[in-house]
């Protein structure tokens, strides 16, 4: 695959990722089952008259998109592509609550308008005055991966020079309560830096937004390029995942030996982490492994945070101690393989190569 350069990136997460500086230099440690974003001052990007209608996830998306474009030095992208599984949950909750409480009478328009999944992509385009291609992918655990795939295809077609692509999701009181009933989360608070060694089922909830300014041309601030992307839905067993990874690496002209760092979506759920154990043991037994979900929590588009972190590791040529899980990464990071699965059904691979 031709390299797709990450010329700029921006992230708003439960870590202090919006303020610049070295990756995880100011580590935020939590002891809870639900992580919320560390919000920057959104008024630096959004007019006070417009911000009043925006829910948290919209502000997160607009903030991360602006950080990405600023880093890339791109004022106007040729396409805006977002991926979100849950969309604008908060405003959906507001609208539905009013609908019930007011017996479908006297409903206000703002919450309804802001409750659609493509609100974030729409708001970014409105603020930029960008009339170019605008699409939102709502594909559960593949939402971000499919937005990235769309960006790659558009760039390869040559119909865009700079594409802004990102993934984002928020967690609200309603969604957290519902997902908790599904048994997704730990029953008791857990220290985030001890999460990955937790011996119990469930994980911690998270949220965030990460955007990337992508191009076929290397920008001044590019440290890495996406050189491979693949998804695998509902594999029957571990062997299918391992076979898929081997084929993925072959398709991208490399072997496990070429991978300098395996970045996994371990989330501290003993059932779900078993897959990462199997993959690491079969293909990367002596490799350094790092993880990211103990830093951002679990959500369907968490791979966007993972990719943002991998890109920063490439830029800094270092793996922060807070992200390291196993082994020691080589001094020179050339290739990082990001392997994530969401709920055991949505498996994805992203290959990042230094440039």
């Amino acid at each position, binding site marked *: 695959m031709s390299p797709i350069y990450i010329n700029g990136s921006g992230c708003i997460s439960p870590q202090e990722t919006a303020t610049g500086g070295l990756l995880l230099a100011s580590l935020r440690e939590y002891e809870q089952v639900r992580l919320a974003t560390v919000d920057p001052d959104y008024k630096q990007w959004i007019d*006070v*008259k417009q*911000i*009043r*209608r925006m829910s948290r996830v919209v502000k997160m998306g607009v903030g991360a998109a602006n950080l990405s474009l600023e880093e890339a030095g791109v004022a106007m992208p040729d396409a805006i592509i977002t991926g979100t599984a849950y969309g604008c949950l908060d405003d959906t909750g507001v609208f539905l609550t009013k609908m019930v409480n007011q017996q479908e009478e*006297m409903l*206000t*328009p*703002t919450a309804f308008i802001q409750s659609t999944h493509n609100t974030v992509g729409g708001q970014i385009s409105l603020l930029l005055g960008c009339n170019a291609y605008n699409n939102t992918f709502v594909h559960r655990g593949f939402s971000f991966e499919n937005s990235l795939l769309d960006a790659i295809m558009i760039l390869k077609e040559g119909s865009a020079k700079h594409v802004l692509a990102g993934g984002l999701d928020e967690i609200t009181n309603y969604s957290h309560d519902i997902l908790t009933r599904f048994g997704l989360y730990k029953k008791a608070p857990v220290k985030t830096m001890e999460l990955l060694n937790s011996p119990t089922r469930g994980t911690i909830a998270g949220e965030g937004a990460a955007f990337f300014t992508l191009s076929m041309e290397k920008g001044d601030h590019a440290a890495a390029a996406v050189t491979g992307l693949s998804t695998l839905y509902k594999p029957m067993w571990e062997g299918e995942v391992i076979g898929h990874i081997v084929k993925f690496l072959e398709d991208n002209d490399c072997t496990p030996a070429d991978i300098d760092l395996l970045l996994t979506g371990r989330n501290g759920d003993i059932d779900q982490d078993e897959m990462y154990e199997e993959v690491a043991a079969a293909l990367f037994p002596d490799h350094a492994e790092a993880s990211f979900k103990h830093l951002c929590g679990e959500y369907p588009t968490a791979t966007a945070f993972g990719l943002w972190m991998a890109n920063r590791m490439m830029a800094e040529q270092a793996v922060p101690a807070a992200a390291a899980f196993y082994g020691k990464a080589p001094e020179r990071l050339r290739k990082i393989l990001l392997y994530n699965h969401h709920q055991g059904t949505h498996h994805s691979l992203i290959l990042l190569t230094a440039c």
Partner: protein
Amino acid sequence: MEDLKKQIIEQLNLQEVTPESISNDQPLFKEGLGLDSIDALELIVLLQQHYNIRIANPEQGPEIFYSIRSMAEFITAQQTAKA
């Protein structure tokens, strides 16, 4: 009129705006308070929710929602007519 200002600020989630900062005769839309068409719909709902007033003729909208004073006068007139 002070209550109406508070209700508008709450309904429209106006930030960095206080009742004292809105003058009674200041235009609510465009160059005044800067409200837009979505806010107009919110104001129509506000009248229904707080004062049980429905605007029968939409063409009256610009006149009714011109300022705090014009809204207050419309509410008073409607309440007097109902009484």
